[in-house]
């Protein structure tokens, strides 16, 4: 790691400690347990990786597996935090929730299957599996969050500030991950792949500085975005969380059954009249 990466690493670590502390102080675990779990897992992962790097060395096999293991664990915890965001505040709206969860579940299954198939077809390297899975899960996270917010906006069910901050932070982390991992993955499975085989071992010393440069640039960008997201979460937690909103008073089921078809018929007639307006 170069100096900039060291500074960013320690800053991110400090931010993670602050975030974990704020989560405990504001009792976020009571409202959003999976987000709290995700934040604590990030902190634990960072400490474990630091210890493994210190004990086995940065380029050792345990460090390699620990790093990619922590990446996959973080992606799983992040996915759970997104599921929690989807459920939060929407479950009380029973009617539209029954519609929304089906759409979101179908999307999740599609993306999860896609991620597995995508990783399955990769060359037999743990890093490339991990990178592909992480990238596809991050892409799925952005799509699912966007669809969730579209639904919420359409039905006029606003997100609370803390949930907005969580969504924004996850979106930044995921967007940078998808773009960075796609570039890296394309490099390692395309241009650089033949250079990484043992038959080219003699050329590795020549290639090493290039690989390090790519890794350093990516690491810096990743750390920046990660720190920025944690900063957003810390900022959102600077004040005590407001009391959870009360569940809405639902209308009798007959109201929708009576009115919805009538509204749609009227809208269709409205559109027919609009078509008439267009006739010469």
């Amino acid at each position, binding site marked *: 790691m170069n100096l900039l990466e060291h500074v960013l690493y320690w800053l991110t670590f400090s931010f993670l400690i602050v975030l974990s502390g704020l989560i405990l102080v504001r009792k976020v675990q009571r409202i959003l347990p999976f987000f709290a779990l995700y934040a604590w897992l990030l902190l634990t992962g960072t400490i474990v990786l630091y210890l493994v790097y210190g004990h086995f060395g940065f380029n050792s096999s345990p460090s390699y597996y620990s790093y990619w293991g922590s990446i996959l664990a973080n992606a799983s915890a992040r996915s759970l935090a997104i599921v929690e965001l989807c459920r939060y505040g929407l479950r009380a709206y029973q*009617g539209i929730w029954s*519609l929304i969860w089906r759409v979101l579940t179908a999307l999740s299954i599609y993306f999860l299957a*896609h991620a597995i198939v995508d990783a399955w077809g990769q060359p037999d390297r743990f890093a490339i599996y991990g990178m592909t899975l992480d990238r596809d899960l991050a892409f799925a996270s*952005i799509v699912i969050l966007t669809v969730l917010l579209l639904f919420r906006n359409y039905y*006029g069910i606003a997100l609370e500030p803390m949930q907005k901050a969580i969504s924004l932070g996850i979106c930044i982390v995921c*967007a940078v991950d998808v773009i960075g991992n796609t570039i890296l993955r394309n490099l390692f499975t395309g241009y650089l792949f033949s250079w990484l085989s043992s038959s080219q071992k003699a050329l590795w010393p020549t290639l090493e500085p290039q690989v390090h440069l790519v890794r350093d640039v990516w690491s810096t960008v990743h750390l920046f975005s990660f720190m920025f997201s944690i900063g957003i979460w810390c900022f959102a937690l600077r004040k005590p969380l407001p009391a959870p*909103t009360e569940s809405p*008073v639902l209308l009798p089921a007959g109201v929708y059954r009576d009115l919805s078809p009538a509204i749609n018929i*009227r*809208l269709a007639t409205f559109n027919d009249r609009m078509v008439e307006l267009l006739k010469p």
Partner: protein
Amino acid sequence: MNNLVIIVPIVIALSGGLLWLLLPQRNTSASPASSFHPEINETLPSPRHYKHFRQIRQALCAADTEYLMKFAPPQVAKQALRERRAVARGFLKGLHEDFSSLTKLGRIIAALSPEVNRRQETERLLLTGKFQILYGLILLRLSMGNTPIEQLEHLTGLVGSMAARMDEAMAKIAVLSASQQITGSLGS
């Protein structure tokens, strides 16, 4: 899904969209369902613009146009016609607002209903999309100089009857909700 040229724009577009959705909306009624109380009728979206059609019709009637073309100096007639078109455009925008209010009401009812029909929801979404396209085309036509006054009248009549039906429906909802709340409080 490995082509950088495809992935990067998609991710940027999705992230931009997500950011836009997270921003506070300009329209204060952007959160109707979460702030909706059936007993407060003032919070409900209601059509307003269709009520002014009589005055608009007067301003846009064909006799006036003929008179202007016949007796006014060409410059003045042209200016007057341009202004009339602007009036028609403004009125159409008002009708668009009325339409949006009604669809918003539909969404509030869906959000507050314990069960919704997937087909009904999809249909309303498609009808709203179709309306947006038609509205754009009609605005374009009005900008090109054509003022279909009779068809506008039909459309206005329709919005009026929709509004009347919605008023009835909302009164019914308010009564039902009030009785439900009373039953709920008696039961608890």
